[in-house]
């Protein structure tokens, strides 16, 4: 970039040289002028500002004016300048033209229309054209302050400027060349366009044999554009240029400057072999960065990518730039747009992009890139098991996974219920036990089916829902805390509603209520015990959710059956029940003892609630617990009338449900903000984000360990305590330079859901290890997925394999 004698700034000048603030408006000859924002020119050392009379559109220039500097005095001091201002610069808002005597230009534009938001001019670079010659023509738009016009691809809305020519035979005109655009945000939308000024270039060619050099020519053009601020106004204008006409006025002396500056504002052409792809919801432009590149490295933060095709990128999103180790390739990643990529025009071999950036000197530049679309092969980091297994395998895996789920730490909260139910088996008659077991199984199946239907329904609306999604609702967590608290109170013997009602002659009724209880226990077990995935389950779930609803339903039922299996086995096999201890008085004590795990589970749920919805939610939930306790005391009092009991019970239940309803709106959108995450047992890990992972994988050769966890996932917590957040693992990670990324799925997080999805998973935990590249030039090996139950040894082995 050669320095010309005159540099044109697009930044507001600082006030450093002005003892007082810069003047924003001034009166001259009864007209009020405002300083034209962003435009000032600096010929040599003295700065010159452009001022505009908003009524007439007249432009004048002046040296820099500070507040209280008399406007008129300065102008009177240079009387010639005033003359220029009023006669020469009328109709030209173009700051380049402002330098010049645009006395009687060959560009016979229609007079300036003060009602318009864009003042436009059409200027040829010369007034003559010989046969076979090509000349450039500039379309200059000066845009009202605060308003904008649109680039070739206008972004989310708007319409680009268009020009159509009426040409005599033997003439041809090229497409418009567009200067580097700006991003123009508007509410939730984003447009690509220009503020203040845009100069477009076109080349006009006289084909050989044309024109007759002695014959004057008049070329007509009609331009339309949309100019918007908050509202939009379409404007249009007709232009005429006269060539080879000795009668026509000559070119304004500043004309060459217009073209010099216009060329500088154009994107710089490149022939770099760039490629782009759209994968997993992200658009990525991959381009080589030649050794002697023109893009300064510091400019990466200022990158803005403008595709000429619509809908490729989410226009509102910022570009993320990553480089490989040698820094000779650049990857620009932006969330993908709404357009179906397969619907790209078939003939478009390459798509044009402008990559804009700001140089050290504050100049906005751009590169013109031509990138080839790469058809997405949609390869995922790990082999996707869902694609390979059959329905039968999936059902088998689901059954097995469901059974193993009984042994996962996630089942701790409902352990009491299960153990108690099991011990009671021994005292039951054969038929009773069988009914009980079936009812419990039915409860589990119904809940699994309901969860399955809910997940498929949510997916059908185009949203992602994962396994355990129900525990992402703080309302449900609060309700569960209430239920667990009540069960605890019941177990410890504070109240015995069923027992008191069940008289001698109500054996049948009692039997029914027990079956109902077993059913509800099943429901509860399924809803609480299933947020985590167990071994084998991941593959089955991943499969189920890509299949038609009926298949998914079958897999969910198999899972439920697996979870219920051990219990059902005891219920239906009398000899097995023989090994259970005989019933006796010990059962009363044992039952009371089991109340404490329930209270512990209540504490866990309240903790999860705090992580999801803050300490206000905790207060609300604890208050409902006290209310419930108070209600139990009222109901179980010796003098309480049955009606009062029913009324109080109904009221309290209604109240406690109502009290926790508003929690749904209190979900903390950024649960992992600040130091709160340290609580997540890993103050040595960093919060997961896809961009960070991409960066680490491509810019470093260090190993990366990714953990996806959730506060409600007890298996995750156990793994953290036993295998991850231990001094040994910390030390190991430190010596091996492992980057440890933790994603918290306690609340909904599409980015984490997408990550799980890439591994064919629908739930947490998942532990993935990305080993270092095996050699200086090699790529990283395929990521390794660790089992759902970790041991310290496993971590060691995984890391050790690479050494």
């Amino acid at each position, binding site marked *: 970039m050669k320095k010309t004698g005159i540099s044109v700034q697009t930044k507001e000048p600082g006030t450093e040289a002005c003892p007082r603030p810069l003047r924003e408006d001034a009166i001259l000859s009864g007209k009020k002028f405002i300083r034209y924002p962003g435009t000032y020119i600096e010929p040599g050392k003295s700065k010159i500002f452009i001022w505009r009379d908003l009524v007439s559109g007249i432009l004048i220039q002046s040296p820099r004016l500070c507040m209280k500097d008399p406007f008129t005095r300065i102008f009177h001091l240079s009387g010639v300048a005033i003359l220029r201002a009023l006669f020469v610069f009328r109709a030209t808002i173009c700051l380049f033209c402002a330098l010049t005597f645009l006395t009687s230009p060959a560009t016979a534009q229609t007079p300036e229309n003060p009602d318009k938001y864009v003042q436009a001019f059409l200027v040829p670079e010369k007034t003559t054209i010989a046969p076979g010659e090509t000349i450039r023509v500039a379309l200059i738009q000066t845009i009202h302050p605060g308003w904008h016009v649109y680039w070739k691809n206008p972004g989310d809305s708007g319409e680009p400027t268009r020009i159509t020519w009426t040409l005599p035979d033997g003439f041809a005109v090229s497409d418009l060349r567009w200067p580097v655009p700006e991003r123009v945000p508007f509410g939730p939308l984003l447009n690509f366009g220009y503020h203040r000024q845009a100069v477009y270039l076109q080349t006009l060619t006289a084909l050989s044999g044309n024109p007759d050099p002695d014959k004057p020519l008049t070329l007509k053009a009609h331009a339309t554009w949309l100019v918007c601020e908050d509202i939009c106004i379409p404007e249009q204008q007709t232009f005429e240029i006269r060539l080879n006409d000795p009668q026509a006025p000559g070119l304004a002396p500043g004309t060459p400057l217009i073209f010099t500056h216009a060329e500088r504002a154009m994107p710089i052409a490149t022939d770099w072999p760039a490629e782009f792809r759209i994968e997993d919801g992200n658009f990525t432009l991959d381009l080589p960065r030649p050794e002697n590149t023109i893009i300064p490295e510091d400019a990466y933060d200022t990158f803005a990518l403008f595709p000429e095709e619509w809908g490729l990128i989410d226009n509102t999103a910022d570009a993320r730039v990553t480089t490989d180790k040698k820094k000779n390739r650049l990857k620009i990643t932006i969330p993908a747009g709404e357009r179906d990529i397969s619907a790209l025009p078939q003939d478009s071999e390459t798509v044009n992009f402008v990559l804009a950036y700001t140089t050290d000197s504050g100049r906005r530049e751009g590169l013109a890139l031509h990138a080839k679309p790469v058809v997405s092969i949609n390869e995922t980091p790990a082999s996707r098991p869902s694609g390979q297994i059959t329905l039968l395998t999936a059902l088998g895996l689901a059954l097995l996974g469901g059974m193993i789920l009984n042994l996962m730490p996630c089942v701790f909260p409902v352990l009491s219920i299960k153990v108690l139910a099991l011990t009671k088996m021994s005292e039951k008659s054969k038929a009773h036990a069988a009914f009980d077991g079936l009812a419990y199984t039915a409860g589990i199946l119904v809940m699994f089916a309901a969860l399955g239907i809910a997940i498929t*329904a949510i997916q059908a609306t185009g949203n992602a*829902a994962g396994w355990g999604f129900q525990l992402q609702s703080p309302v449900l967590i609060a309700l569960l805390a209430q*239920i667990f608290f009540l069960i605890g109170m019941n177990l410890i013997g504070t109240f015995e509603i069923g027992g008191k009602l069940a008289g001698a002659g109500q054996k049948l009724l009692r039997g029914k*209520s027990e079956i109902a209880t077993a059913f509800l226990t099943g429901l509860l077990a399924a809803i609480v015990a299933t947020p985590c995935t167990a071994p084998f389950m991941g593959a089955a779930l991943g499969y189920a959710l890509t299949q038609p609803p009926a298949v998914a339903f079958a897999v969910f039922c198999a899972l439920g059956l697996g979870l219920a299996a051990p219990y059902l086995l005891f219920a239906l096999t009398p000899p097995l029940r023989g090994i259970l201890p005989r019933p006796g008085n010990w059962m009363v004590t044992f039952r009371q003892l089991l109340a404490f795990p329930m209270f512990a589970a209540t504490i866990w749920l309240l903790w999860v609630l705090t992580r999801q919805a803050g300490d206000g939610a905790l207060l609300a939930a604890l208050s409902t617990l006290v209310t419930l306790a108070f209600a139990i005391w009222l109901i179980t009092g010796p003098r309480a009338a049955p009606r009062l009991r029913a009324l109080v019970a109904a009221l309290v239940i209604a109240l406690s449900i109502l009290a926790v309803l508003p929690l749904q709106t209190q979900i903390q959108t950024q649960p992992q903000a600040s130091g709160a995450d340290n609580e997540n047992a890993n103050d040595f890990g960093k919060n997961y984000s896809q961009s960070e992972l991409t960066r680490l994988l491509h810019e470093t050769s260090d190993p990366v360990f990714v953990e996806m966890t959730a506060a409600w996932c007890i298996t995750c917590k156990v793994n953290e305590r036993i295998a991850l957040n231990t001094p040994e693992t910390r030390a190991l990670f430190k010596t091996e330079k492992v980057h440890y990324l933790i994603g918290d799925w306690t609340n909904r997080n599409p980015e984490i859901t997408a990550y799980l999805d890439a591994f064919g998973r629908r739930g947490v935990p998942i532990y993935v290890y990305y080993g270092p590249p095996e050699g200086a030039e090699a790529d990283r090996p395929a990521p390794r997925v660790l089992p759902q139950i970790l041991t310290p040894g496993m971590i060691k082995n995984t890391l050790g394999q690479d050494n």
Partner: protein
Amino acid sequence: MKLNAKILTLNIIVGAALILAGALTGRTATAADAKLGQPAPNIATSDIYGEPFRLKDHRGNIVVLEWTNYGCPYVRKHYDSKNMQTLQKKMTENDVTWVSVVSSAPGKQGYMTAAQAVDRMDMEGAAFTTQILDDSGEIGMAYGAKTTPHMFVIDPDGILVYNGAIDNKADANPDSVKTAINYVVQAVTALQDGRAVKPAQTKPYGCSVKY
């Protein structure tokens, strides 16, 4: 073990209902849930007459959604040329539910109260089935409506089958409607003939929706 079965039942039923409700409603806040070939995001609101409007009540009919802002020059092109009204009339006579949606925020161009909207409808001679006012922009965001006009076509099963411009003339020139290829007409005709909608997606043109 004698749990309080009733408490448990009630809590579980309410809880389950809430998860579902929460899971479904909490989602619509994230932008552009509308995806081609997927069920269109539900709309449950009241229209300019104060009647409840639920998208799912219109299953069995083709539904056309038209984002509009009477102050926008591109909307003006279609209303001043009577192109939009003619289309609305023709469609609604053929059992198409035509819903005009205004997502302009209060104070922004195109914003109307329900009463103003009814008056304006008469003035414009609009012939849509009904109009809904989406001041909060929630419906607009769920559909990813970007411009006025921006058109969506939903098939009788509630599946979104077209998202994009009204026609192929992305300009504000009223004369262009005469020669334009109308994508909405194409989509609706294809549905009626049992053909696949093509194109199913085009770039919408016009003013920004004034969220």
